[in-house]
């Protein structure tokens, strides 16, 4: 870089650019928050769903699964599992873990109560109804 472009110019562009684009991020964030209720299915955030989210978090499900594509890639996507499997299958599946099939990936037994299972299913139902711009491409996740 030539002598015309000085360090203090570079510094000013850095601070100016950072402030500008951070403010742009804030503006987009503000707009997103305004638009979200139309997309995020928050109308269905019942106490059961909220309790279900806590079950999801305190069992560290994200350590193996993805939810809307985020998490670990060791086990299936669960954002759409409610639509893929339905509520009864999900509960029965969780209750029957681990499968113990030799060499297969194993899911722990979490000893959830019936109420906890119902809440978790409600949370997964709520998640499956978020408007994700048609992601995932098909039901397999």
């Amino acid at each position, binding site marked *: 870089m030539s002598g015309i472009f000085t*360090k203090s110019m570079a510094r000013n562009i850095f601070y100016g650019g950072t402030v500008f684009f951070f403010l742009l991020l804030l503006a987009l964030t503000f707009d997103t928050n305004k638009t979200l209720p139309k997309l995020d299915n928050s109308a269905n955030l019942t106490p059961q769903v909220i309790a279900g989210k806590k079950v999801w978090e305190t069992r560290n499900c994200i350590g193996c699964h993805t939810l809307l594509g985020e998490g670990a*890639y060791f086990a299936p996507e669960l954002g759409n599992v409610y639509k893929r499997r339905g509520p009864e299958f999900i509960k029965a599946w969780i209750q029957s873990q*681990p499968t113990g099939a030799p060499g297969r990936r194993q899911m*722990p037994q979490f000893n959830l109560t019936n109420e906890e299972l119902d809440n978790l299913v409600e949370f997964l139902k709520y998640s499956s109804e978020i408007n994700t*711009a048609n992601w995932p491409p098909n039901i*397999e996740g």
Partner: protein
Amino acid sequence: MQYKSQAVAKPYFIAAIGLFVGQILFGLIMGLQYVIGDFLFPALPFNIARMVHTNLLIVWLLFGFMGSAYYLIPEETETELYSPKLALALFWIFLIAGALTIVGYLALPYATLAKLTGNDILETMGREFLEQPLITKVGIVIVALGFLFNISMTLLKGRKTSISMVLIVGLWGLAIFFLFSFYNPHNLVKDKFYWWWVVHLWVEGVWELILGALLAYVLIKVTGVDREVIEKWLYVIITLALVTGLIGTGHHYYWIGTPQYWQWWGSIFSALEPLPFFAMTVFAFNMVNRRRREHPNKAAVLWALGTGVMAFLGAGVWGFLHTLAPVNYYTHGSQITAAHGHMAFYGAYVMVVLTFISYAMPILRGRAANSERSQVLEMWSFWLMTIAMVFITLFLTAAGILQVWLQRVSDTPMSFMATQDQISLFFWMREWAGVVFFTGLVLYLVSFFVKGETKGANA
């Protein structure tokens, strides 16, 4: 070592390397669980191993950043550290808190750990990378504030260089954005939206400032190139990083229930995110080519050049690979993501910390550079780890392409688990590449204990 108080960096570096070893061991276990699903089950389920693997990474990089800052700041500001005692006290607090957290992960069911540590008061746990118990998160904030206080007070009383200013802006940003880890709304979309304010604005935002500052400092030291030139480059690089990276956050907002305009904002700005890393590579090579001295620490120069190249490949190229919304529609949350994550973290943050340790550790041990034999070994470890990481990334990329094809593109899509069976060959090859990586890491450790004739007392 010009300033006595720089010595506090040493325990930070030792702890960083120790935790790095732990991280890789857990990585090897998980890699094996990918192909032998019931390995170590139920003693160590995958989700616990993964939490340990990723949390150890974050913590050891933080140790590395803090140690580097404690080493760099006195020399840049030309004054002793404000309080070396505080730095040492915080070291032990952070190490013990970190160790207890890992023990908690391993010894207790996660739900029990959550109950015992106050998750009911403020629910913050169970989110990827932010799995730490509330008390650990509070501890991280306390340590970060103490650290920033110490560094800022030192800076206030000393010379203010661009490198130290950029470093401190990056470190403050790190602490401030971590505060979003305490915000966990019930609304899953908002939860995810602000979760990225920690994760993305760290690794594709303020951490790049830290990376740039550390690299610039080492390059000044090993090349002797004029500070004005290097600092000008530094500003250009971090400008590119934040101008692209801030709105680039949008590439995480395609499919999580956020407005679809993010597909445009995210695609356009994150397509430019390779630029700062490309500039960094050009910068590193340029400075080394224009060097005014032959620094005896060849290994540190190699690490510095490697950081530029691998950060560009891992963060830049592999990030670009799946960042455009129409591509990401198919690759989101697949092994492609894992491939990118591995090489980006290694190339950018692991390598810059190892660069800094490579430069500073010999001086902390009373010599300008290690013996020839030790350096040769260290350079072997550089090549083994780096090439192994390239292969880990290539195998995961191959696995990811197949996964996307079988599970998402095909007219008759396979289930997730059926797909995983189909691509297990690549998971095996990844695991073997991981073993090579670990071999490189062992050589790296050994290089610290190789004796031999050393040159000069100071750089």
